[in-house]
């Protein structure tokens, strides 16, 4: 990550990995939502995270880009400790600007799209490169147009989000995240708020992205997508990773009773 140096010895352990989580814990008040998550995501890997609601999968995803503060454990992205700087045994909270700089390299797509409603689709995609990276309007516009074409919406660039269908909005949201040229993409149930017939167009875009080698962590209920596109599948329940492995094997032959119970309901 540009301009940031981590001098901690722990970082060596995370080298070569896009995401490394070590005993990550998160509490909301007295409720422990994450109870020690250990996970590793390789460069170019597509990891799908499934599990019942309240299992902590979205919270874990939000910890990766520091939208939620980790309460215990360590989390690295691309070899850099997320949200903190370690000097010796002491952790220092990163300043707001440094956190923002870390987030530049991590794209995120939300369940409810969260497009900026006062901007056109194209402006949504142009905004962050111009504000955060200081790109010229022309450069930002040129790439935004390319990205809109890539997600199949070159005819919708001047529309406001309220004039787009859910599937179109989510594709704009993906283009908006890609405009920052991230190394890692996080998807938080990207198709859960969509009408069934619109799910496919969003999954198609994600499938293309995976094919191009993007590292992705996808929280989803789409087992078909996980089986077809995922390199690994993680099943979470009650704030822990219950089972993980190759999607096809986990889905066909779950080892743990809780995984079996969950999959028998959703498949």
């Amino acid at each position, binding site marked *: 990550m540009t301009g940031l140096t981590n001098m901690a010895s722990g970082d060596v352990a995370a080298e070569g990995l896009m995401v490394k989580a070590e005993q990550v814990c998160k509490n909301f008040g007295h409720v422990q939502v994450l109870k020690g998550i250990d996970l590793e995501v390789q460069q170019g890997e597509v990891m799908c995270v499934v599990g019942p609601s309240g299992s902590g999968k979205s919270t874990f995803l939000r910890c990766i880009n520091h*939208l939620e503060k980790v309460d215990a454990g360590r989390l690295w992205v691309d070899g850099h400790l997320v949200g903190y700087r370690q000097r010796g045994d002491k952790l220092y909270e990163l300043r707001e600007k440094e956190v*923002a700089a870390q987030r530049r390299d991590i794209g995120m797509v939300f369940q409810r799209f*969260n497009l*900026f409603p006062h901007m056109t689709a194209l402006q949504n995609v142009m905004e962050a490169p111009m504000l955060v990276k200081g790109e010229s309007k022309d450069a930002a516009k040129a790439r935004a147009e390319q990205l809109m074409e890539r997600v199949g919406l070159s005819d919708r660039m001047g529309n*406001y989000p309220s004039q787009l269908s859910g599937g179109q909005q989510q594709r704009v949201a993906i283009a908006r995240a890609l405009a920052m040229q991230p190394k890692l993409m996080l998807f938080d149930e990207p198709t859960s708020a969509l009408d069934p017939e619109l799910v496919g167009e969003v999954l198609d875009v994600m499938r293309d992205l995976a094919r191009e080698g993007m590292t992705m962590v996808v929280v989803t209920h789409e087992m078909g997508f996980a089986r077809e596109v995922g390199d690994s599948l993680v099943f979470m329940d009650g704030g822990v990773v219950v089972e993980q492995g190759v999607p096809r094997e986990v889905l066909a032959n779950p080892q743990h009773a809780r995984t079996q119970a969950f999959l028998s309901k959703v498949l």
Partner: protein
Amino acid sequence: MSAGQTETRTGAIKAVPVRHPGRWVAAVAVAVLAAMLVNNLVTNEAYNWAEQLKYLFAPAVLEATFNTIWLTVAAMVGGVILGILLALMRLSANPLLRGAAWLYIWVFRGTPLFTQLLIWGNIGALFPTLGLGIPFGPQFVTAQTNALYSAAAAAALGLVFNEAAYMAEIVRGGIQSVDAGQQEAASALGLTRVQTLRRIILPQAMRVIAPPTGNEAISMLKNTSLVVAVPFVELTFTVQNIYSHTYQIIPMLVMACIWYLFLSSLMMIGQHYLERHYGKGYAR
């Protein structure tokens, strides 16, 4: 069932509409009242329209109207800026800032504007000198308050400080109306808090802030008449001066109302365009 009945069932409906006799009664009553009003405006000589026309563009009236306009503009601009600041303090994580903003709003919203303006007019009695220096320590420069201070400044400050308390609550409501997902999406893209506020949150909050702010501006236009408490010369004060020697009380007050109506109509047009601008992207 005959063939004709089936035909009518599938064709367009031609039904006898419901009668509304109450509406007719009310409409007639309103029409009579309107006719009485017009008759009164034309035949009642106490309006003395000629006298009004004589003073409508008189230099003293124009100057006073100009004062009313700039006081309104200054009070609203200052009130909005200070109001945004207070709203951000109210939403701050720091309890001291939150408390200070709450106290400010409590004082300025909880006391009458007229009374506040009287105090601003007599501020020299409260703070005889103004100085620049270290709090509780030595002063580098000091000056007599009354030397620095004019009636115009007292009037403008009084209106600004009062308006800020109301604007703070309007702005706070606007900011809180913006979906929390917007902040998250902006953060996830790497925008800083200030960038998020300026580019994402405030433009959306403006959609909610603009209509009540328009109301505030129109209220402010009329509240400027209270700066007579300072005292500062504006439209109402000036027409009072005029009728105190012409004794044409009603004509002068009606004339002032005509000016106020004209100005507030202009503001309503401005408000319409402002709301349209900030409503971009929202289907109605």
